[in-house]
């Protein structure tokens, strides 16, 4: 794109710099507080938080059992295309679980608006909030929001005790540097804009399902 003419930039910066020459009172240095209670059992906590967030968490021993669960989940979802992140582990699982309906792989492009469900991996799971961290590399931006059902395939080794740990770990792995998009998803799309009454499925999924395998291989 053409270079933007932006004379305001220097003027704003110089106003900021001259404003900051006037010292403002400093906050008294405080002891770093323990803000959140520590999480002792990440798995149990994750399950509890999912329940509270009206998200579904299904524990499975391995990827075969995940495939079995996925098959029965899909049986109860109206016929039509599902969108799947093109990853080796999901290829293997899809082979055993998805039949009788078209699959669109993320390698073929973004999901169709009419997808019945999307199936993706996640970068990590946050126990303290029952959240799923996804990035562009997990099937893209729309994959986790466009369909009525979003199914996340994950392994227990992806559990982080809390948000601080998840964000620190994300930085260490260069997640923000490698992806133009990250999203911490907690439960399904919802609104309470009408008389504070909770309604699920505002713009995005009505259901968020996490298939959580003890060992995902």
């Amino acid at each position: 794109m053409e270079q933007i003419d932006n004379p305001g930039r220097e003027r704003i910066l110089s106003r900021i710099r001259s404003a900051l020459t006037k010292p403002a009172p400093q906050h008294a240095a405080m002891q770093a507080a323990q803000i959140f209670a520590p999480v002792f059992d990440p798995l149990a906590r994750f399950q509890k938080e999912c329940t509270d967030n009206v998200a579904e968490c299904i524990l499975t021993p391995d990827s075969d059992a995940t495939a079995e669960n996925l098959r029965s989940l899909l049986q109860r979802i109206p016929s039509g295309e599902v969108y799947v992140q093109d990853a080796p582990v999901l290829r293997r699982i899809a082979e055993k679980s998805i039949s009788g309906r078209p699959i669109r792989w993320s390698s073929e492009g973004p999901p169709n608006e009419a997808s019945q469900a999307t199936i993706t991996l996640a970068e990590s799971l946050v126990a303290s909030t029952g959240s799923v961290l996804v990035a562009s590399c997990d099937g893209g931006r729309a994959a986790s929001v466009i369909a009525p059902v979003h199914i996340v395939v994950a392994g227990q080794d992806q559990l982080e005790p809390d948000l601080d740990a998840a964000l620190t770990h994300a930085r260490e792995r260069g997640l923000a540097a490698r992806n133009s998009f990250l999203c911490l998803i907690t439960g399904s799309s919802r609104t309470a804009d009408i008389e504070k009454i909770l309604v699920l499925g505002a713009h995005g999924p009505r259901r968020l399902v996490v298939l959580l395998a003890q060992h995902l291989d």
Partner: protein
Amino acid sequence: MSTAAREFLLAASNSATLTPRETIRRSIEHYEAAAQRGRSRFLDWEGARRKCSEIKWEALNHLDKYLLEFEQRVKARGGHVFWAETAEDARRYVADLAMQRGVKTVVKSKSMVAEEIHLTPALEKQGMRVFETDLGEFIVQLRDEPPYHIVTPAMHLTRADIAKLFTEKLADFMTPDATVKDDPAQLVAAARRALRRAFVSAEMGITGANFLVADCGMVAITTNEGNDRLGTALPRVHVAIAGIEKVVPRLENLGTLWPVLATAGTGQQITCYNTLIGGPRAANEVDGPEEFHVVLLDNGRSELLADPEQREVLQCIRCGACLNACPVFRTVGGHAYGTTYSGPIGSVLTPHLRGLNEFQHLSYASSLCGACTSVCPVKIDLHHHLLQNRRNAVHSADRPWLERAAFKLWRWNMMGSHRFATAGWLGRNALSVLYALGLGGSALDPLRPWTKYRAAPAIPKKSFRASWRKRGAD
């Protein structure tokens, strides 16, 4: 009195007829219960508030450094950053961009900054269709109204009001055979159907930003509905608009800021979608816009930064907690203020953004009870800033000459003990005579503004000093 002040007084006195207080009360009671539960989930809520305040304070006191770091990283990913000095600069940039890109339809996520700069009318003037996609914002847009509340724009409406509105304006999207016409789930479904069409056809998505993360060059957007998600995934241009004060130093800061924003805003532990976006779709990515623009808005903020006493006002994360806590907001409602930002934060901020002379009256739209300060998640000393604005207004803005003269006389009187004693003697005796004549409460009674609604206090026979001397003698 300024025009804005007259309008505020009129709207405030009519507020009970404009909006049923019952609707507001129910909504705020619901919020309070949820927020209390939310705070109890923290081991140390006070510690969390302190930490958030420290994060924002650090960012503000090195604002140039963090903004430049943010800009450099966004540009490195192929995004664009535009620095807008005024609302007009920001509007023109977005409107010109939309024109150049042949945009016909815009999907907008909730953004108070977009409200502040009146972006939607500017785009509509260019012939574009602009859809508010947050449900509450969509509802008030259909009613051609500004949002009632920072977080809950349609707080003043009942489901019956919304059902009536949708039946008129969204007939094509309502389920014809719905038995319960005002069922919130049916209403949400109708809005979803209407807005999906907009999402799929829009060429431009506009969002605000809750935070700008300097060290990874990403904008953080928080929604429950996921409308920001669709608006930043499907259209080919994404524009994020944010005040310059939104920057925070590090990605890890969000580990506290996200839960605190959610708890203070709605009582949730964390909001459903906390999205981070750092650029347009990269070459190896599946989807996302071709262009990513960030508009950084000053519009008076750098002047507030230059006021060391009130610099911390820029820490605000727009959670709306002070509105919910404020007895004035609860009584007069959001629309009476006639400003983009209402409630205590609006009363503090608006004189800085739009002029102390025109908006000084908002400093008095407070009982100074301090409820706002006690709930602020970033510990802004809101009610003291209202006092400071009052003081500044007395020094610099227009005040009636009678008020100035009265305070001069009062001050002179207070400065000498004999003058003070004489004035007290005069006051006691004059009032006693007045009341003895049965003129209490009449136009001659100087205490009438007080006694109009309250019983007149008994007038003491002796001054305090005389009583004190007598007590010493005993």
